[in-house]
Each structure stands twice: as C-alpha cells, then as structure tokens.
C-alpha cells in the first residue's frame, strides 16, 4: 500500500460552531452545542444511537439548517452553502456508488466535478490508498459492502478539500482498511486539514477532541415543540 504524499497545505482556518440547536420533526435533537476545530485538528463525535451525531454532521455540511446558533469558518459566519460545500468532503453511511459504473469511472466522475478535470495520477493514488487498484475496471456492483465503502472513502483523496466530515467511517472495514483510513486522516491533518468523525468504535486519531453529542440532548417533554 502506498502512502499518499502530502502535497497541499491548506490555509490555516478554524471551523467552529456556536450555540447550535437542531430540531427534527418537532423534537429538539440537541441544543446549545459549541465546537471549534483548529487547522490540523480532529473532533470525535460520540453519543448513543439517536443522539444526533449524523444530524450534527449534516448541519456542519450545510445540508440541514440549524434552528439556532451558527457555523463559522475562520471566524466568519457561513452564509453561502455552496462556498462552504466546496471546502468539505462528507462521507455518509450511504456510499453514493453507482453499480453500473466501474470503480475508476465512479471516482473520476467526482474528481472532474470537484476539481474541474481528471488527473490520472491523483486517481491512481486514491485507488491505491484504499487498496482498490485491483478492482479499477470492475463494475461497482461486483464490490462487497466493505469495498464499496472503501471506494466512498477514496473520494476523499481525489480532490483536496480542507474539511472532512466522516459519519461512522469504520463501518464494514477490515483491519487493513481501518489502518489505511487512519493513515489518510493523519496525512490530511498533517497538511493542515481538519476532520470531524462520528464514531462508536475506533476514533482513528489519538489526540482529537471528543464531543459527546448526547450530553446536549434535552430529555424532558418540555422540549417537544407544540407549534410544529
């Protein structure tokens, strides 16, 4: 397995959120949540099932609006979702892999969408990082769940973006792939990128900050909204 060379250093900017609340279906998922991820930093989201880790990640990505509070990049409140989207990569529990396309076609689509062009050497590096080189010409429908997830993870590497949001990235991965992911995260942080990981198991980093989303979950009936 080839280690990715650290090529790009991101401009050092902090990603933060202040007093974030989110309401889903009339229920307050979490409230009064603060976080800050400095350049090169890692934030680990913990919490029981349903505590709002995925909701928080989708909120950080700008997909879900917050009902109170705001996100900030370099101290500036984020008000342009497209500009924010361009600096992040989001790995969700859905792999966004097209079964009818080959592994390489799946990757090169996202590469040309994000980077504006395809770059064969960057594509090969991304494939090698998660040991997918052998399957390059396979239709993605032949991949196992773990291999499909590795393909989703290799998208992180095809075009650089400073902020990685990873939702349970260790799901369905074998030990070698977990190690490859930990290495990719370490390389990303070394080049000044930041990462937010929601995880029950391995945290992939040993010096990250931990945020227990569950601690911000209101539990009493008073938090049920009546107007919705």
């Amino acid at each position, binding site marked *: 397995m080839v280690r990715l060379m650290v090529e790009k250093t991101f401009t050092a900017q902090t990603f933060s959120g202040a007093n974030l609340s989110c309401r889903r279906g009339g229920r307050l998922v979490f409230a009064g949540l603060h976080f800050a991820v400095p350049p090169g930093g890692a934030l680990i989201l913990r919490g029981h099932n349903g505590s709002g880790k995925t909701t928080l990640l989708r909120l950080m*990505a700008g997909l879900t609006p917050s009902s109170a509070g705001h996100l900030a990049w370099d101290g500036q409140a984020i008000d342009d979702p497209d500009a924010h989207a361009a600096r992040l990569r989001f790995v*969700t529990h859905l792999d966004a892999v*097209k079964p*009818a396309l080959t592994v390489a076609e799946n990757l090169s689509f996202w590469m*040309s969408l*994000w980077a504006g062009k395809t770059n064969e050497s960057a594509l090969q590096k991304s494939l090698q990082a998660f040991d997918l080189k052998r399957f390059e010409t396979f239709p993605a429908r032949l991949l196992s769940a773990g291999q499909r997830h590795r393909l989703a993870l290799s998208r992180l590497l095809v075009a650089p973006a400073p902020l990685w949001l990873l939702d349970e990235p260790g799901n369905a991965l074998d030990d070698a792939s977990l190690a490859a992911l930990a290495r990719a995260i370490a390389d990303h942080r070394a080049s000044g990128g930041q990462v937010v990981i929601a995880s029950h198991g391995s945290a992939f980093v040993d010096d990250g900050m931990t945020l227990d989303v569950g601690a911000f979950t209101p539990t009493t009936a008073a938090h049920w909204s009546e107007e919705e």
Partner: protein
Amino acid sequence: MSVFTTVLARDLRLALRQSADSLTVIAFFAIATVLFPFGIGPEANILARIAPGVVWVTALLAALLSLDRIFTVDFEDGTLDQLILSGAPLPVVVLAKVTAHWLTTGVPLIIMSPVLAVTLHLPAEGYVPLMLALLLGTPTVSLVGAVGAALVLGTRRGGVLLSLLVLPLYIPVLIFGTAVIEGAITGVPVTPLILAGFAILALTLCPWAASAALRQAAE
C-alpha cells in the same frame, strides 16, 4: 470539463448501461398507442381524427413513467447529498440531469412517433408537424417533470403523487402540441413557436425550482 458536461456524460453513460429503463418507456409508448386502433376499430377517419391527441397523451404518460428516475436513485444511494455538496451551482446539475432525461426518453419518443402515427392513419401532412411539436414540447415535459420529481422525493408512493402533481401542468403543452398537428392537417396552421415559448419559460424557472426542492429533500 464543465459541471454540466460532467453530469450529463455520467447520466448518459448510466442510461446506456441500464438501457432497459429507456427501452421500457419506448415500449410503453408503442403498446399504449397501438391499443387505440384495437379499442376503437379500424375506421381510418376516426383514427386520423384522434391521432394527434393519442400520440401526445401516450407520449406524456410514457415520459411520466420515467420521471422518478431523474432523482430517486441518486436520492436513495446518497449521490444527491454529494451533488448538493459539490459546490457546483445546483441548477446547472439539475439542468444536466434533465437534459440527459430528455435525450434518453424525449428523443426516442420523437423518433418512434411517425411509426406509431402510421398505425393511427395520420394524414401525410401531419408527420413533420408531429415530430416538430414533440421536439419543441418534450423539453418542457422533462423540465416540469423534474420539478415534480424533486418535490415528491422521500414520499411513499411518490409515483402516484407525481402524476397528480405534474399531469395538470402538461395541459397547455398538450393543447398546443395537438393544435400544431391538427392545424397542419386541416390547413389552418398553428405556429409551433408557442411550444418553444413554453420550453424557454420552463428552462428559466424549472432548474431553480427543482434545486430548491432537492435541498428541501436533503435536509
């Protein structure tokens, strides 16, 4: 490559690899149209009288069958989240997907239509207007349909809801689409430019409306 061509190329490649989807739509168009001569009988005048309307209505229904394909698969497999987060202008992505839909369903319908018009005894002077009307009308069908498809994302039995939502909006296209063909047959020409007008209006509104609905669906 630009965002538009990247997304268009991917959707066309997917449609080509899963060509059964497009073929089903064309087969539906053929079978539904051919049912009319069987149901009404072989009287040429009656068939010729209803031919423009029958071809248009079956073309609309065939297109309707394929509309949920524009966004549903992307929504279910997580691609839609990634497209919204691509940083590219979402209306451009939507327009590329709609263009792919039109090329893989609208264009085959246009090509098939003269063959089916033969079974309906459409008079000879109606063929060129038929294809012209479909050529100018089907882009509107795809564009308006995309808004409906985006609005029903995530709902159960979205297909039925989609038809209730979208079919009434197709009435203007249906009226002028058939009028263009009938005008040519009866010698009172109706300009097909009004269909082009509808297409331009849909082009300026629908990609933005569909984008807003997609963002709502992804919340």
